[in-house]
């Protein structure tokens, strides 16, 4: 099981002829992801890693029946690539690209209204359902099958946390990187809803950071809607000074809002444990699972 993507997901890679895209297409195929095609305007008829290339997303979908895409298109053209994927009525679109202008994403979000597509990202590592498929750049070798869902605003922190979980014997259903941009597709609450409805997922790890109020909103949502699945959290950026962008476009404390302290307070207030340092994420999840009485069930690897 897991959420949003599985072994039956038919994937196309947008911008497949680029260096990064080609590299990661190979990695995704190695994980047995069902990649059925790629796009690159003007390069129809070529193949990349044995995958047929099409000029447009519509052509690729018509020929292959793809229902998902992963985008590695440069920032200048990435918003247009997302629009093209939404227009082709794909179920899931993952955008890896960093540095897309925010106002482009404002338009994309408007275009998404009323459409069936679930957008993940941009500026994200993608999504991986253990032993089934991965869309994006998440290193697959650290994942083990299990019952914990992972949601994260950061790439390397997702890997770090998953690695700690696996080392502690706690396997994962799906890991989803929602991205570090201020305006994005899927946010914490959206991802939590999918995990709530996934019978395989027994608990969730949520990795947030400074900026915005998505973690506070998620805390409230969890309290009201998901009493049966324990959540553990980590928040990066306790020491971040106000007004400074900490790498991610969305990681900024502005107008005194979006501090780590506020987020930790909101999470603790609804009984969610927050790891005190990045090194203790795995141990904190273990502790939460034990308290909830589901540690043995979740100890899968």
């Amino acid at each position, binding site marked *: 099981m897991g959420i949003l993507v599985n072994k039956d997901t038919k994937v196309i890679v947008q911008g497949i002829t680029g260096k990064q895209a080609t590299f*990661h297409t190979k*990695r995704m195929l190695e994980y047995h992801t069902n990649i059925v095609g790629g796009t690159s305007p003007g390069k129809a008829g070529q193949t990349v890693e044995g995958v047929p290339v099409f000029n447009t997303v519509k052509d690729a979908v018509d020929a292959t029946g793809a229902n998902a895409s992963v985008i590695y298109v440069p*920032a*200048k053209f990435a918003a247009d690539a997302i629009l093209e994927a939404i227009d082709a009525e794909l179920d899931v679109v993952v955008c890896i690209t960093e*540095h*897309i*202008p*925010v*106002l482009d*994403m*404002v*338009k994309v*979000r*408007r275009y998404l209204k009323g459409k069936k597509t679930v957008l993940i990202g941009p500026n994200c590592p993608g999504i991986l359902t253990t032993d089934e498929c991965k869309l994006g*750049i*998440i*290193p697959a*070798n*650290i994942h083990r099958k299990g019952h914990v869902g992972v949601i*994260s*605003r*950061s*790439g*390397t*922190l*997702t*890997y*770090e946390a998953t*690695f700690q979980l696996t080392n502690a014997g706690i396997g994962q259903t799906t890991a989803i990187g929602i991205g*570090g941009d*201020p*305006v994005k597709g899927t946010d914490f609450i959206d991802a939590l809803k999918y995990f709530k409805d996934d019978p395989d997922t027994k608990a969730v790890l949520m*990795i947030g*950071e*400074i900026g*915005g*109020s*998505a973690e506070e909103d998620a805390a409230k949502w969890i309290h009201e809607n998901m009493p049966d699945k324990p959540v553990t959290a*980590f928040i*990066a*950026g*306790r*020491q*971040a*000074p106000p*007004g*400074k*962008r*900490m*790498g*991610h*476009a969305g*990681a900024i404390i502005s*107008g*005194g809002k979006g501090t*780590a302290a506020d987020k930790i307070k909101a999470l603790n207030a609804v009984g969610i444990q927050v790891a*005190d*340092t*990045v*090194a203790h994420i795995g141990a904190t999840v273990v502790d939460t699972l034990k308290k909830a009485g589901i540690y043995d069930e979740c100890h899968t690897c």
Partner: protein
Amino acid sequence: MNIHEYQSKGVLKSYGVNVPEGFPAFSVDEAVENAKKLGSTNDENSKVVVVKAQIHAGGRGKAGGVKIAKNLDEVKKYATELLGKILVTKQTGPAGKKVQRLLIEQGSNIDKEYYLSFVIDRQTAQVVMMGSEAGGMEIEEVAAKTPEKIVKEYIDPLIGLAPFQASRMAYAMHFPKPCIRKVTKLMGCLYNAFIGKDCSLAEINPLVTTKEEDVVALDAKLNFDDSALFRHPDIEELRDESEEDPKELRAGRAGLNYVNLGGDVACMVNGAGLAMATVDIIKYYGGEPANFLDVGGDSTPEKIAEAFQIMLDGGQAKGIFVNIFGGINRCDLVAQGIVDAAKIISKDGKSLPVPVVVRLEGTNVEQGREILKNTPIQNVIMAPTMEGGAEKIVQLVKEAEKQG
């Protein structure tokens, strides 16, 4: 990216926003010349002009950075006083900022002050216009004390700012009747500037009505989306590098994501999230973080060497914690990068000036550790865990501090 007030006003003027007439000045003579153009003299007919310090920080008025000059002598006096002065405002931090530019501007007959801004709302993914009749105050203060005084209009990107929204805002802000049309026009122009130049913030505080029933943007602050600068070379040209931290500037040129945090325990990390978390863990173990630094996934030895040099520059870093989680990128390449970087920055290729604690995990970690274990470079210490590494570097820096 930030620009100065006078530059913001220039951009806004080109979009039809009503701003006071004014000119930038880089010297006292220039300030006096500009004041003359605005009708400032040394007789009783002199027009009032305003001498405003131009730094990339708010709160200038309260810090004494804005002066009203009734005549030319006063312009000269204030310009002399302000140019070169270190201005410490609520937003500059205790170190303050040196004033190197002034704006000489015509005075306004203020009747009442208001607040108007456009920002991007993350939750709704829309541009939001915010207005308040409590102008001149910091909007955060208004939001905390009297949130009912802030009015918002969410803008559909496909429609743009609709005229009804502008007039609804103008009435809600209680503008006097003769000013309504003028202010709705200004809102439209400001919105066009926000969209046209890919702003992340466009703020007029205060927006004023004058005794002559005019509506004027008395101050202006524009911030721009760094990711969109590629389509605005005219804005990129307005960058004032002297306003930026020299280390951050140098890091930016090298393609490094670096923020100076002022302490002495430096760190070099791959990935923004892990970099933030590493800063936090240094502090957790009692160290003072020197910086945030994300080197990214595909670092060359040259890039790592440059990162080391930036951290060490001016003697800031007393120790460096390298925290790498090899995902797609490989630990052995990072380790080799550190070894090669040491060769670039040390004279004999065998020593680094401060202790470097390295924590490697993930893809090809064994090969990476092997490379660092066999290196002739002194001062490189392998840490078995992240926790252990953070504790170790803090301890080593404290020892170095004791030794003086």
